[in-house]
């Protein structure tokens, strides 16, 4: 039975609680690095490693870290993993480092990672937390890959650099407006498939990891849809 429970921790992140398409977290890298499918894989893998690592450490230290300083402590832990991943990528996969650029260190402020630390890892044991990280990471990678594939195919007629439809060359899909547009269409699709759940909890604030300490929401200002 335990096995089934563990599997659930992994799979929930892929579809039901997909961090990008359902919770709408981590929008910056989702829009910025998805000009090619290969970038999406690089970004997704790097974020998955950080997610598993930070979830594991946050969960292991959940009884030691005082509540008052938990956010700085989480940020320190996340930043450590990001820096380690950054150094390893620079040393052994310089091409990925070049294509992701500043978005590799910016994984630190990816809401998905702080969000999972605050919402899941700080309340659950190590193994489920790591599995949650793995599931969320896979969900993030899958959403990035979907975005990257659509944009690369329509914008350059290629997929992972291979020529698929040479006639397709709609450059606008590689530019920022194309990014916003494809993302909007994918969320509309996810919306349609899960019966309008996305629209309710999306929009930045409601799913934001800082919402507990956020006074904007506390004041009763309705900011998101």
């Amino acid at each position, binding site marked *: 039975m335990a096995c089934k429970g563990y599997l659930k921790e992994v799979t929930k992140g892929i579809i039901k609680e997909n961090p990008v398409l359902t919770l709408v977290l981590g929008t910056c890298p989702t829009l910025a690095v998805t*000009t090619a499918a290969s970038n999406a894989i690089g970004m997704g893998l790097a974020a998955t490693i950080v997610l598993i690592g930070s979830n594991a450490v946050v969960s292991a230290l959940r009884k030691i870290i*005082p509540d008052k300083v938990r956010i700085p402590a989480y940020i*320190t832990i996340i930043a450590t993993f990001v820096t*380690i991943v950054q*150094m390893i990528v620079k040393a052994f996969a310089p091409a990925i480092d*070049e294509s992701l650029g500043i978005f590799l260190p910016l994984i630190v402020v990816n809401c998905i990672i702080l969000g999972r630390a605050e919402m899941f890892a700080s309340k659950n044991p190590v193994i489920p937390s790591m599995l949650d990280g793995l599931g969320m990471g896979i969900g993030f990678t899958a959403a990035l890959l979907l975005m990257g594939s659509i944009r690369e195919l329509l914008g350059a007629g290629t997929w992972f650099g291979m020529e698929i439809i040479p006639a397709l060359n709609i450059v606008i899909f*590689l530019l920022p407006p194309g990014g916003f547009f494809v993302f909007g269409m994918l969320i509309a699709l996810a919306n349609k498939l899960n019966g309008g759940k996305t629209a309710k909890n999306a929009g930045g604030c409601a799913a934001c990891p800082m919402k507990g300490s956020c006074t904007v929401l506390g004041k009763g200002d309705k900011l998101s849809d």
Partner: protein
Amino acid sequence: MKIKFKDIFVPTITLFVICLIVSALLAGTNALTKDAIAENEIKKAQDAMFAVCPEAASFEGKKGLEVEVYKALDESGEVIGCAIPVASKGYGGDVSVMVGIATQGETALGKVTGVEILSHSETPGLGANAANESFLKEYKQDITASGFSVVKDGTGGTEGRIDAITGATITSNAVTNAVNEALNIYSSLIEGGVL
């Protein structure tokens, strides 16, 4: 107001210990990866130098100059040209390129043997196409007195003319400006008797 010892010191000490452990971890990873990172950078620059000066057998850094220049040597150690890294402002930021120049050309001014993009942050699908061989090969021609200029009529490839990349005139200009900058450095080196 009584300050509770536990409320102030326990969080501080916990954070401090976390920071100590983190610093140790990072220093360790840095020690393990820094050689590989440095090697990657050197290898990348060297690969670019050999790509732009295909005839060269080895390179020699030129120290004591205001600019960075690498002399290209053939197997017998004769100077056959040079590789010059230069940068110019493109659409999304600096475009840095490596320019290879051979002293032997059909004209007395020498010949560009190759141009490679070292780094850029141009728009994918438009300016980023500057890294394609089909664009960069246009620079492989004899140097004219007026340097290179960008044209839009499809006559590029000869007499210093370079065809602009479709939809990316700024990037085309940036690469061309960088190459012209390298030509200026090259001619001042020739005049100074350094090469």
